[in-house]
């Protein structure tokens, strides 16, 4: 039949349209480079630091930048450059661990709730909604005050604060995908819930989930800095970037660079994470569009 020909020969003659590729655009590349830079610093920073980060190296405090102290000294006369290198471990490490935990848990629970539905979805959603009602910083204050501050406690607290949001987000996306015909087809085929979640739904919510992960990472860095600013985060003599800002906030009035550099570090990390996430390769991003 003629119609038969027109329909299939078209497939043979037209070259396949160029699909989405793996390449980044330049904004994404800059973001990735900055992230990799900070990750590297977090790994090898302590060996690069010219002075031990807790040692008072200069009797003068809030000194300006000099050949000896590249970024000046802090309120006790400690080398800021060394302290930022050391602090990157805490800021990048804790935030990364917390965001990974929060998003993994949240996304998995969200997808399960969307697919299972019924009482499971209901109970979990209401519980996490209730939890969402507690102000995050207040929750952090209470936990740290009760248990004391240590790195695992910080990671778990931040995870607990950001997991419900991630759950909500993933659930909302998964509910939409769950009603699509291809999921119904898989269900009618007799597929199990884990298959539905991992193979049918997850690839289709990956793009937005990654964007959300980036945003959440930034929030966690900021809350961690906030907690440290209040003295509840990383404890002295160590300090994360937020703590560095707090310690040296008085230096502003002296025009000391001590407070500027940790702030720049926080800004560069958070902005670059967003630049990276917003410009992921189309191969990943386009999946859910």
């Amino acid at each position, binding site marked *: 039949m003629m*119609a038969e020909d027109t329909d*299939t020969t078209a*497939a*043979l003659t037209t070259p396949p349209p160029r699909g989405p590729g793996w390449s980044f655009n330049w904004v994404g590349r800059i973001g990735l480079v900055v992230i990799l830079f900070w990750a590297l610093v977090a790994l090898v920073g302590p060996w690069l630091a010219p002075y031990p980060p807790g040692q008072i190296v200069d009797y003068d405090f809030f000194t300006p930048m000099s050949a000896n102290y590249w970024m000046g000294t802090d309120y006790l006369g400690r080398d800021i450059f060394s302290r930022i290198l050391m602090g990157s471990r805490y800021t990048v490490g804790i935030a990364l661990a917390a965001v990974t935990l929060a998003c993994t848990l949240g996304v998995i629970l969200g997808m399960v709730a969307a697919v299972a539905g019924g009482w499971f979805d209901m109970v979990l959603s209401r519980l996490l909604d209730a939890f969402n009602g507690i102000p995050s910083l207040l929750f952090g204050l209470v936990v740290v005050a009760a248990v004391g501050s240590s790195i695992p406690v910080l990671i778990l607290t931040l995870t607990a604060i950001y997991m419900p949001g991630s759950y909500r987000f993933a659930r909302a996306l998964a509910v939409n995908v769950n009603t699509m015909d*291809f999921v*119904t*087809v898989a269900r009618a*085929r*007799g597929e199990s819930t884990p298959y539905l979640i991992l*193979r049918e739904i997850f690839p289709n919510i990956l793009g937005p989930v990654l964007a959300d992960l980036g945003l959440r990472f930034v929030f966690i860095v900021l809350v961690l800095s906030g907690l440290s600013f209040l003295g509840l985060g990383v404890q002295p003599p160590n300090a994360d970037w937020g703590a560095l800002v707090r310690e040296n906030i008085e230096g502003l009035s002296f025009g000391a660079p001590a407070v500027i550099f940790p702030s720049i570090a926080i800004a560069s990390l958070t902005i670059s994470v967003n630049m990276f996430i917003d410009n992921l390769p189309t191969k990943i991003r386009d999946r859910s569009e």
Partner: protein
Amino acid sequence: MTMPLVSVKDLRIGAVTDAGRKVEIIKGVSFDIAPGEIVALIGESGSGKTTIALSLMGHTRTGCSIEGGTIRLDTSDITAMSEWARARVRGTEVSYVPQSAAAAFNPSKRIMDQVTEISAIHDLMPRAEAEKKAVDLFRALALPEAETIGQRYPHEVSGGQLQRLSAAMALVGDPKLVIFDEPTTALDVTTQIEVLRVFKSVMKQGGMAGVYVSHDLAVVAQIADRIIVLKGGEILEVGSADQILSAPRHAYTKQLIAAFEPVPHQPQGLPLQAAKPKVVLEVADLCAGYGPVRGGVPHAKILKDVSFKLERGRNLGVIGESGSGKSTLARAIAGILPAYSGSVMLDGIQLTPDLRNRSKEELRRAQIVFQLADTALNPAHSISTILARPLTFYDGLRGAAREARVIELLDMVKLPAALRHRLPGELSGGQKQRVNLARALAASPELILCDEITSALDTVVAAAILELLKELQRELGLSYMFISHDLSTVEAICDDVLVMYKGEVVEALPAARMSTEAEHPYSRLLVSSVPKLDTGWLAGLEQDPELVAQFANR
């Protein structure tokens, strides 16, 4: 000869694809429209018919732009105007009736406010006068309770009424040209008739010119004076409606018309599979519904005591309008929506209502194919992954054997093997529907439930899919349950037909004699409402008004 109202000369419209490539979608199109004339633009999806229609308002969709040629409407040169000047013309000189009236109305504003919006924006007349005019239009469009219907919200009127109201919205500014963009495509056939009829009479009374965009030749035949056949952004043929229908010149037009002619289905003489029972599917007193279940009965009962038998190698058509429960029937049989009473027997084995309690073997035998291939294929999986999954799931195939079977399946549905590396987004609508079908075939089923599988496709592509279904049936001894709202499709492939109305089977008939032997009043109404390829059909159509009032959701 009088001067044409609209003249389009060498119109070229280009678009920029996502990849940044420039393509020309309209390749030098020229035509005229005389005052009071209705011209139909007909063609398959992607032929540029809507793009041309929109350009008459000086509008192009995002990413497109008018790159050459001129469009003159009455005295104004649309192409040379500024965007601001075009806005002055829209609504007063040219107006637009969209395909989906439901999407075109703001759900939170009263109908009257939206209908008179054009006169308010252009400051044409005082509000009271505009409302009076709107009521006159409602009356002309045969809307019930013309005085008060404007006070309702869009969700309080039916789909056919809303479509007529969107025409009132377009007509309130007394335009010289009205663009109809597939206004009846989303409507049921019994509703479509009334809408077409009033559109035609209102246009005639007002002496307005119209552009009617459609893919359906039979609909166009009723309303258009002249037909322009488009393909790939070019005009293939222009002629009066009569000439196009009776003496098409271009091969493509002939193909379009041929695809429309129903080819009565010949029952297949299948090699008898002696070991298997003769009846593939037997459904008895099936009831299903949605909503919270109380006392074993769901809140909204959709299916009511549906019973039928389907013999091996035969095809059963299920026809009915939207809301008749035909898709629910397929879902209940497949177990996606567990039936709350009644039984489904497949190959002589009683199936449990919920698919979660069915065995893999039972699930394998009945496969379901959905209407929209776009949403039925996971956009993140390649074609090969999609087709391989049922093979692994049901038969445990892996590696090279699975790959070979995937290629075989693609060959069965007449797709090249190289296609398996692509993603669904990189296929055409017809190709996607073939893959969709191939996935069902991968399970080697006995029965395929086809839920409106050709409804979203162009006529010619749909005809090819039907041909493919028949061929597969001959080769594999399949049985189909074919759900459709389109009678000619059902006639082309089915042996028997069930007519459904509000969740009940009102009549069971042999497909070939459906049009002559239908006895139930609803079946008769349905059969008589299908437009024919004849320009005089609508004018000559007489329907019992009592019947219409009883069954049609107008």
